[in-house]
C-alpha cells in the first residue's frame, strides 16, 4: 500500500513537472512546426489558460479602475484648485484691464483738457434710498490744493464740482444735485441755457432752463459746458437731451438731460485745478472741439 502511494506520488510529481514543460514547449514552438502532441497540449491548456487569463484580467481591471479613479480624484482636486486659481487671476486681470482702460481714458481726457489737473480716486459714495449716488467723496483735498468750485470730470463727461474740502478729502457736488447750476450749450444749434440738477432720488436727471423758445432742441442733442463764468472750462460733455418741455406760452422752453457720467460706476476722476478752465479746444471723449465758435443750425 505504501509502495503504491509512493509510486502514485512520484508519478504525480513527474506529471506536475512535465505538464508545464510540455505547455511551454507547445506555446513557444513555431505554429507551423507544431506536431500532434503539441496541438493536444495546446487544446488542453487553452481552457485553463482562458480561465486564468480571465481571472487575471478581471482583477487587474478592478485594480486599474480603482487606481484610475484615485488618479481621477486627485486630478479632479488639482484641476478644481487650478480652476479656482485661474478664475481668481482672470478676475484680477479683468479688473486691472478695466482700471487700465479707465486710467487711459482719464489720461486722454487730461491731455485734451490741458492745464493743471489732479487725478482722484472715488473713496466714498452716498446713495439715495433708490440706490442712486447723491454725493461722491474723493481722496484729494485741501492738502492737494483742491478747492471748492473746482470742476470734476470723468472720461465720460462732467461729474460736478468740488463742494467742500478738508485734509486729504473732498466732497463733490454732482451735476444732478438740486443746488448745481452750470451754464451749458447744445452742440447742434448753439442754444444756451442753465443746467440744473433735479435732485431726484430714483434717477439721474438735469434740466436746462432758460432755453429760448425759438431754439429747436431735439431728443439726443449733446449738451456741453459753455465756459461762461469761468467756473467750468468750455466743451466738456455734460449729457444728452432726453425730453423737451415746450409750453404753449412764455419765452423759454426746458429740456431734460441725462448726464453722460455714470455716477454709480465712478472710480477715478480728474479735478481741474488751474489753467484747465481756459482750455478745451481739442476733440475727445467728453470734450467738444469747437465750442469757441459753435455752429448753430438755425
Amino acid at each position: 500500500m505504501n509502495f503504491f502511494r509512493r509510486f502514485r506520488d512520484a508519478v504525480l510529481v513527474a506529471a506536475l513537472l512535465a505538464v508545464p514543460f510540455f505547455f511551454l514547449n507547445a506555446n513557444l514552438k513555431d505554429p507551423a512546426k507544431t506536431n500532434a502532441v503539441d496541438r493536444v497540449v495546446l487544446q488542453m491548456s487553452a481552457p485553463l489558460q482562458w480561465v486564468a487569463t480571465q481571472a487575471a484580467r478581471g482583477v487587474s481591471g478592478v485594480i486599474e479602475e480603482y487606481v484610475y479613479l484615485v488618479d481621477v480624484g486627485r486630478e479632479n482636486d488639482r484641476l478644481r484648485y487650478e480652476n479656482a486659481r485661474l478664475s481668481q487671476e482672470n478676475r484680477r486681470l479683468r479688473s486691472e484691464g478695466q482700471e487700465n482702460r479707465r486710467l487711459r481714458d482719464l489720461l486722454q481726457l487730461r491731455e485734451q483738457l490741458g492745464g493743471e489737473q489732479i487725478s482722484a480716486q472715488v473713496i466714498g459714495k452716498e446713495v439715495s434710498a433708490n440706490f442712486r449716488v447723491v454725493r461722491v467723496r474723493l481722496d484729494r483735498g485741501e492738502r492737494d490744493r483742491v478747492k471748492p468750485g473746482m470742476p470734476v470730470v470723468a472720461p465720460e463727461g462732467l461729474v460736478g464740482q468740488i463742494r467742500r474740502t478738508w485734509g486729504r478729502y473732498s466732497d463733490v457736488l454732482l451735476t444732478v444735485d438740486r443746488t448745481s447750476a452750470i451754464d451749458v450749450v447744445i452742440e447742434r444749434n448753439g442754444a444756451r441755457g442753465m443746467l440744473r440738477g433735479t435732485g431726484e432720488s430714483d434717477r439721474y436727471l438735469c434740466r436746462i432752463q432758460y432755453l429760448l423758445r425759438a431754439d429747436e432742441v431735439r431728443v439726443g442733442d449733446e449738451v456741453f459746458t459753455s465756459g461762461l463764468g469761468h467756473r467750468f472750462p468750455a466743451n466738456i460733455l455734460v449729457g444728452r437731451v432726453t425730453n423737451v418741455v415746450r409750453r404753449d406760452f412764455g419765452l423759454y422752453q426746458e429740456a431734460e438731460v441725462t448726464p453722460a457720467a455714470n455716477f454709480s460706476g465712478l472710480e477715478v476722476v480728474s479735478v481741474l485745478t488751474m489753467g484747465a478752465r481756459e482750455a478745451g479746444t481739442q476733440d475727445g471723449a467728453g470734450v467738444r472741439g469747437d465750442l469757441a465758435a459753435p455752429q448753430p443750425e438755425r
Partner: protein
Amino acid sequence: MQNAALLLLGFALLVVQASATALVNVHPFSPNLLLPMVIYLGVSHDVGIVRGGMLAFVLGYLLDSFTGSPMGLHTFVLVATYMLARGAGLSLVLRGPLFQIGLTFAVSVIAGGTILALRAIFERPAAFEAGTVGDTVLTLVAPALTTAALAPLVFFAVRSFEQLATRRSGRAPSGPGEGPGLS
C-alpha cells in the same frame, strides 16, 4: 479549505505584486512574491507533496497569466522550486528572518537561472537575446534581492493565513521551524 485559503493568499500576493510594479517602476528589481510562498509550502509539515505540487502548479499558472510570460514557464519553475525545497529539507534554516532571506535569495537566483535556461531552450533565437554577462547577472540577482528582502513578510503572511485556516478547520498548525525537519 486550506488549499482555497492558500490559493486566495497567492492570488492576493499576485495582485499586490502586479499593482505595485504597475504603479512604481522597479525594473529590474521586480520581486516574485510567490516564490517565498512556494518555498514555505515546500518546507511545511502540513502540506503533502502532491498537494503542495498542485498548489505550486496553480500558483505558477496564475503567475504566468499575470506576468504575460509564456504559459508553463513560471508553472514549471514554481513546481521545481517546491520540489527543491521539499527535497532539501530546509525547515531548520527557516527559523530566523536572516536565514529566510538567504535561502530565498539562493532559490530565487536558481529559479531565475532556470527561467533563462528554459527561454534559451524553447524560444526562437531571435526572440531571446542573451545580452552581456553583466545583464544576465543583473537579471538574476536584482529580482532575487527584492524577493529575498520581502521573504520574511511573505513567510509571516502565509504562516498567519495557514494558522487561521487550520484553526477554523480545528487542527493544530505546524509550520516550518516548529517541528522536525523534512527529509
